[in-house]
Structures are given as C-alpha cells and as structure tokens.
C-alpha cells in the first residue's frame, strides 16, 4: 500500500467556466492499494480491540504475582501500603498494581523499540527518500513485513509507508502508557491485556526498524550463509586504534565505518561493538567485530583496549563516561535519548572537537550528526591510540594482592551481588596470594559493579575480578554468525508442514540479554542440546553472542557446527533486538504461507493458529530489560510460551497454566464444534526456570501442541521423556496428559508408558482441529 500527501496550488487558470485564481487544494492521503488480500476484522487494533482474545489467554494462563515492593509511590496520595489486600488511596489493590507495573515495563520497552524505529526510519528517509523500496530478501521473501501486515493491515512497500505504521504504533503506545495513570485502569486483567497490546506494538516497531535498515544498508537479506564474525577481545588487534560502539542503533556506526573506509583506514583500525550495535555493525561491515554482550560493558571498558567509546541508545551504562574517563578513553554520545550531560558539539568543526577529546580538555561530547560522529571518532582514535598505549589500566597482580588486603570482610559486597558471589572469600584468598577464587568469579560475574558501590573501603572489586580473569578475557576469540534477518518464504514452505504436524519437534528461540545466573555457557549448552535433537534453534541479541562463545570437542562454535538455515537442526541468528520481530514473523508466515490463512488485519485467527499448532518456545535465559518484557508480551499475545532464567522472576508476574485443572485445557474442535480436552499444551505462557536442566525439560514439554499428529506427538514425547529421565532421573509424572491415542506413544518407550496409563486410568481422546475461537468452527454444533 502506498499513501501520499497531495497538495495542488493553482495561481491562475482560465477555463470555459471562468477564471480560477489562487486555488489551493490539499488532500491528506491518496491511498493506492494493490494488495488483493481481503481486510481482516481487526486492522490497526486499538487498546481494547483484541481484549477478548487476550482474556481467553489470561483465563487459561492466570497471572501469578510476586510483588517486589509492598508499596505504591507513584502519586502524592502515597506512599500507600498495599500489603495483603489493602487498597491504596486511589482504590488500587496489589494485584492491579502488580499488573500495572507489568504494563509500564512493556510500554517502556515498546516505546524504546518504536522510538528507535522512528529515528532509523526518519534518518533513512532523509538519506534515501520516501520512495526507497523495501527489500528484505529479494524474490525469496514476498511477505516482507508479516507482523505489520497482521497487526495493521498495511503492506508496506517503501520507506515512506513505514512512517504511517510508526504513527499508528506511537499513538497506541501512548494509550497503553496513559492507562497506567492514577485513576485509569483498575482491573489486573485489563492491565495485562494492555500489556499484551504494548507487546503487539513492540513487535511492529521492531519489524519496521529492521526492515528499514536491511533494505537501505544492504544487511544480509534472509541469508542462511550470513558471514561468520570474529567475536571476543582476543579477536581484536590491540595494536590498532580501536573504536568501541555500545548500544542498539546502527546509524552513528554507519557514519564511523563509512568515514573509515573512505579514508582508507579500514586495514589500520578496529571497529568493535557491544550488544545490538555490534550485530548491526557486522551486518553492515563484516570486518567489524563483536566483543560481547552489553551487560558486561564494564569489564570491556575497564580492560582498556577501546581508544574511543561511542554510545548510541538503550542498555548503555549511565555511568559510562566515568568509567571511560578512568581509562582515558573519550566518549562520543550519538543519540538524543542519551546525551549523558555532554555539550552538544554537532555544529562545531570536527578537528576542533578532536583536539578537545585527544587533549583531554573534555571527557566526552554529544554529536547528533552521524557523519560527524564518524569523522570525529576515527580521527580521535587514530590520534589518541599511541598516547593510550602507554597506560596501564588494570592493576598488576601484586597490586591486586595489596588491595585485597584492605578488605574488612563485612560481606556487603556479597550481599549486594545479584549472584551472591563469594567475593569476601575470594578477596581473602587473593590477599594470601591465591588468585584462583577471584578468577573463578570472572565467568559468573555479570559486571553490574554493585559490589564496588557497597564496599566501605572503596575497593575496585570488579577491576580485581577482571584482572584475575584477564587471561580468559584476552583469549576470547570465537565466531558468531552475523544477523541474517528474516526467514525466507522458501524456508517456510519447506518446514511449515513438518513444524505444524510436529515432525520437526519445535522451534526454540533463545533471545534476550546476558543477566545469566552462572555465565553464558548454559545458553550454549541449551542451544546445542536442541539443535542436536533437530529442533530449529533461533538466536538473537546477546544470547546469540553467548551461543557462539564456546566451542565443541572439535573446536567448532555452534554457528560452525550447525547450518544457518530455518531447518531441522539449524542454528540461525536473526540479528539484533529489533530482529526479534523476524521470529514472530516466521511463526506468522507459517500460518500464512503453509496454512494459507489470511494475514491482513486478522490477528486473532493467526494467533489462535500459532498457539494451537506451532510448537515454538522462547527462552530468555538472561532477560533483564523492559524491552525484553515487551518482546515477551508480543509473544504472549501470539500465544507463544516464554521461559526466563531465575533472574527473570524479577519481572514479578508469571502466566501459568494449571495442569491439575482439566477444565483449563478445553478447545473447540473446528470440524465439529465439540469441546475437546487437549491436556496442558502448552502448559504455560510465561514461566521462570531455575536451572538449565529444568529449562531443557520445560522447553521440550512446552513444544507440545494440541494439533500434533500422532507421529509428531510421539517424537515430541520421546524428547520430553528422554530429557526428563536424564535430568530428573525418572519418568514424567504427567505423561498420561499428553497421550491422546496409543499411536502417540513413542514406540521404544511403550513398555514404560502403557503401565503408567493403566495406573492413571487413562482414556483415549481425539486429535482435534483445535481453536479457541467459536467463529472458527466450520460446522456449528446443533
């Protein structure tokens, strides 16, 4: 669809009817729509349009709230004590308050992605024009924007079309956030429904951002063979001037890379990145390098190898200027959203800014012109690198020992550590000359620095840990596949049937941040386990980096060991945070391309299809941010279960099914209108898992869907049982809930399962054509 603003001005025109002078005619939009798919029932849904659908899910998966705080302090009536059923001055109780916090988190996340998209789209329109065509995969991708088509009913063809999509999202997110004002929404489930809506907007916003940058910046286009990128500090040539870009928005980095290449300096310097900016740098320039997940930026900055730090937006440490100053690395802030208190030097001559940074007259600057960011960053890095090479930024091992001796063993560091790391014991050992316990903390430390804030002796504990782990840090040199972008229509056609029939046992999306309970190895292990079992494993963001940070017995990383296609046993990295939209997009495209369901403004039907038929599970093992919350909300709304690691419990609300309540597991059989009990499939919509072993068992179980064929169900059960026996040491106690006919029983496990079925008084049931929507019943019940 294309829309144009039309403005006609006639100064003077003679016609048979007379003389026309000074006529001005404005038409808001001319809509040219050559998309023949009929419009579904819910194009551009408002905050309550999909409420009935949300309530179906929320009735099946009831919120379990775990308030982090007993109080509400959001208005001047408060603080109000909401403990144990008390209502606040506005009338809100703790359940509604808890869901209100969920809505606020999801609205922040959706606003962040959408504002990111707005910046990218406006910038790219300015640079390439509104008519620049969208292309995310050439002839292999005809459904270029499945989420946008589904939610808005718009089929965007040019950059300009994305403008209208974003305007819609911006309005909706404003409505979502407004509902959290005092005296607006009062019911917990309505807050939850609005959080789902924020999640839907989030997915659209992410998709817009990514398809705009893929189309214009020539990122890999649905490419299973996207380049393998070197990753880790060990991959960085530390003799070269190094620019480290931190954040999520590639626009300033493009300025850096372009200037570096135009100046023929690309062989003479390094551009490295943290988090999503790193991925998008590599999608633009495959010689850029990734140093690691964003949560660990403190250790990467303190390691001191970056000569210039460029920050854009999202998840940047807000004290980064202090940290960079300690290692004498100038900072360039390049986003309006993240000015860091620096003077705006956008309109100053580049060489003057460079002089100020290199001389140390200013620790950092704000530059809002990406081309100027490029020139200043490159010139500064080249000039300052020889000076910085003389600096020793980390303490020596002897200094570590001496500093550790000043520890008073008050335990405040451990008590402030999210991981409860045994820092006092490690410092005691270090003071006695044994550095090993401090080194052992390196892998598990998430780099938040709370230990240092708590220390009454002002010991730079994190720096001591980084020094103790320096050998490991500097030897990190792995490979991560650059973000491939969308899943192609061709791939969907190949695997759509096997996924829906259950013959490919599931799609596991390992996404999100790096707030891991015990380091990143768990992510690698989980990905490898499921890829080896021929699930489709999709990665993105910091999890995609962790997945590539370890090697198998043959020395291969995950991305070398497994193919990069959307296929059984594939491990594919879609890219940065905003590329998460392609995971939802792939699910939507299965419904559209394989099952021939209309997408256009047809949210409920497609979500119902995905929920009941597509064995997909998201795992955000280290999720920490509000953006992760809104990404999850988008998947909840589509009926896709999401697991989080133990720190994810701090999202304070789970959406849990009750396997012991059979009435929760009823669906309509669309063929007959009969109500059929399908068992707890999928059992939960949002669940915390405590250990990687538990995650693996839950993933296998959550891939089970009512629609599985007997062959598919048997395959899924064999994985579930096998993992359950391996990690739990016994048969699953709920196996009878997932066997519908004896054909569902994995053939090699018959002897074990049949006696269990007898003991549980199991009865055979039918395999329905499952739906939660009465309107989808083809033959109404008499």
């Amino acid at each position, binding site marked *: 669809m294309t829309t144009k603003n039309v403005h006609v001005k006639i100064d003077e025109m003679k016609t048979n009817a007379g003389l026309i002078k000074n006529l001005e005619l404005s038409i808001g939009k001319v809509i040219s729509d050559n998309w023949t798919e009929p419009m579904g029932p819910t194009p551009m849904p408002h905050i309550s349009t999909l409420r009935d659908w949300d309530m179906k899910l929320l009735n099946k998966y009831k919120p379990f709230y775990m308030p982090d705080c007993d109080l509400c302090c959001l208005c001047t009536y408060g603080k109000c004590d909401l403990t144990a059923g008390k209502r606040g001055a506005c009338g809100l109780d703790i359940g509604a308050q808890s869901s209100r916090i969920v809505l606020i988190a999801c609205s922040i996340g959706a606003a962040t992605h959408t504002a990111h998209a707005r910046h990218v789209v406006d910038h790219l329109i300015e640079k390439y024009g509104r008519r620049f065509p969208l292309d995310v995969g050439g002839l292999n991708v005809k459904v270029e924007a499945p989420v946008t088509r589904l939610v808005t009913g718009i089929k965007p063809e040019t950059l300009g079309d994305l403008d209208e999509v974003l305007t819609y999202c911006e309005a909706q997110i404003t409505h979502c956030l407004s509902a959290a004002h005092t005296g607006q929404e009062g019911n917990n489930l309505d807050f939850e429904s609005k959080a789902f809506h924020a999640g839907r907007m989030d997915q659209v916003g992410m998709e817009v951002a990514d398809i705009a940058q893929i189309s214009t910046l020539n990122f890999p286009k649905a490419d299973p063979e996207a380049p393998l990128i070197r990753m880790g500090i060990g991959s960085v040539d530390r003799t070269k001037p190094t620019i480290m870009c931190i954040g999520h928005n590639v626009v300033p980095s493009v300025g850096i890379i372009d200037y570096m290449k135009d100046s023929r300096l690309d062989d003479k310097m390094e551009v490295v990145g943290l988090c999503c900016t790193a991925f998008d740098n590599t999608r633009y320039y495959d010689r850029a390098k990734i140093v690691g997940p964003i949560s660990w930026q403190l250790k990467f900055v303190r390691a001191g190898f970056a000569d210039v730090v460029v920050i854009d937006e999202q998840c940047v440490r807000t004290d980064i200027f202090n940290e960079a100053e300690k290692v004498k690395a100038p900072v360039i802030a390049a986003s309006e959203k993240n000015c860091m208190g620096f003077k705006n030097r956008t309109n100053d001559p580049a060489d003057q800014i460079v002089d100020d940074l290199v001389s140390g007259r200013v620790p950092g600057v704000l530059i809002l012109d990406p081309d100027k960011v490029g020139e200043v960053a490159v010139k500064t890095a080249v000039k300052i690198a020889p000076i910085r090479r003389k600096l020793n930024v980390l303490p020596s091992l002897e200094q570590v020992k001496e500093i550790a001796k000043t520890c008073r063993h008050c335990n405040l560091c451990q008590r402030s550590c999210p991981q409860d790391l045994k820092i006092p014991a490690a410092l005691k050992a270090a003071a006695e000359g044994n550095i090993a316990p401090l080194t052992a903390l390196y892998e598990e430390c998430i780099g938040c620095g709370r230990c240092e804030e708590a220390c009454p002796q002002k010991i730079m504990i994190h720096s001591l840990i980084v020094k103790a782990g320096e050998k490991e840090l500097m030897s990190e040199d792995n490979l991560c596949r650059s973000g491939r972008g969308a899943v192609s229509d061709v791939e969907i056609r190949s695997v759509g049937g096997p996924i829906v029939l259950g013959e490919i046992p599931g799609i596991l999306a390992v996404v999100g941040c790096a707030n891991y309970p015990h380091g990143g190895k768990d992510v690698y292990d989980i990905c490898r386990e499921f890829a080896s079992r021929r699930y489709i494993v999709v990665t993105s963001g910091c999890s995609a980096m962790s997945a590539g940070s370890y090697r198998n017995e043959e020395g291969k990383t995950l991305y070398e060991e497994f193919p990069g296609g959307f296929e059984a046993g594939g491990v594919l990295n879609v890219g940065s945070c905003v590329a998460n939209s392609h995971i939802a997009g792939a699910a939507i495209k299965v419904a559209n391309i394989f099952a021939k369901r209309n997408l256009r403004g047809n949210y409920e039907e497609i979500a119902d299809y995905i929920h009941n038929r597509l064995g997909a599970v998201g795992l955000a093992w280290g999720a920490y941010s509000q953006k992760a919350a809104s990404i999850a909300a988008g998947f909840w709304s589509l009926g896709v279960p999401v697991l989080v690691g133990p*720190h994810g419990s701090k999202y304070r609300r789970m959406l849990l099914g009750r396997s012991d309540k059979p009435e929760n597991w009823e669906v309509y059989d669309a063929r007959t209108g009969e109500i059929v009990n399908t068992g707890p499939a999928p059992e939960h919509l949002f669940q915390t898992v405590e250990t990687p072993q538990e995650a693996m*068992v839950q993933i296998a179980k959550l891939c089970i869907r009512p629609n599985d064929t007997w062959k598919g169900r048997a395959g899924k059960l064999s994985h579930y049982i096998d993992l359950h026996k391996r990690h739990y040491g016994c048969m699953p106690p709920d196996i009878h809930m997932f066997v519908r006919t004896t054909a569902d029983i994995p053939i090699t496990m018959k002897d074990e399962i049949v006696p269990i079925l007898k003991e549980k008084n199991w009865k055979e049931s039918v395999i329905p054509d499952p739906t939660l929507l009465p309107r989808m019943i083809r033959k109404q019940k008499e």
Partner: protein
Amino acid sequence: MSCEPWQCAEIAATKKANPIQKPEIAVAMIKKASRPLLIVGSNATQRWMEGKQLIDYIIDFANASKVPVVATAHMVGEFLKRGYQPAAFMTAMDIGQRVVDPTWQGIDGKGHPDLVMFVGLPYYMEALILSGLKHFAPDQKTMTLDNLYHPHASWSFPNATLEEWANNLKVMTSKFNEGGQ
C-alpha cells in the same frame, strides 16, 4: 545473627518476618502444623556445610520430621540418587501458584498445607515467591530454613554462618528423631 535482608536491596515494607532465634522454636511450630510442606530449591546441591551438601541435611530432616518435600528445578533427580522420594516435584512458580490458591488440596489431595517452608532456592526467587504468598495468601504461614533472613516470610532464621546453619538443621532433625512428629 542479624535480621536484615541478606540481599541489601530486598527491603521489606510494613510486614516483616518474625526471627527464629532457636531451632527448637521452628521445631515447635512445625509440630504444631497439621499439614506442613517443605519446598527445596536448586541450591540444595550448591551449598556445603562441614563437608556435606545441604540436600543431605534436608533428607535427614525430612526423614525425621516426615514433612513431605516438593523438589523444584532438577532436584528430584538429586533426591532420587540419594534414595529419597520427594512427595512431588515441579517448578518453583508452579508450587507457589498452587499454594496461593485456597482451593488447592495439597500434594496428596487431602487438604491445603497450613505451613509452607522453603529452603535452598536462589535468594531473590525465594524472596519473590514469599512476597507473592504474603500478599495473595495472607493467612498462609510460611517459614524459611535457610541461613539468610527473608523478610517476606512469616518466620525466618536470621542471617547466619554456614556452621550455625548446619547446627540449626542438625538440632531440628535431632528434635524430631527424639520425639517424632
């Protein structure tokens, strides 16, 4: 022993756990309960005291007290390896949600537990679940057997050393061994 939250930011608000100053008090309260339940988390194999894992202390305690155990995470396998059969196993969130439900009839289907004890979950997870119970099951009595003070419980041991913790668990086990439940 201090009654400050172990993790510094885990500040309680208006309702704060009563400290258990002696293990004998915990034993008395458990004996008073008619349907106690013990939820054991993944730190059961991560915490060592006097050369013995927490899970082994728990098994001794559970055998002596006959309190049914719900294992979370993959701990069921660890219990089974040691020859102990937990009454049930499920995720920590699943058991938390069931306890909040007043209509839930317990693991054995014979009635809602009147005392729910926790031990060995990651501190922050345990704190959150206890908060959920405090708010949404206000009549539910909860207790922690950890060595870290949990303000959201009804009763909690204060922060204690590993040696003190081991001693608390041993005393509790011995009191049940002496007198039965």
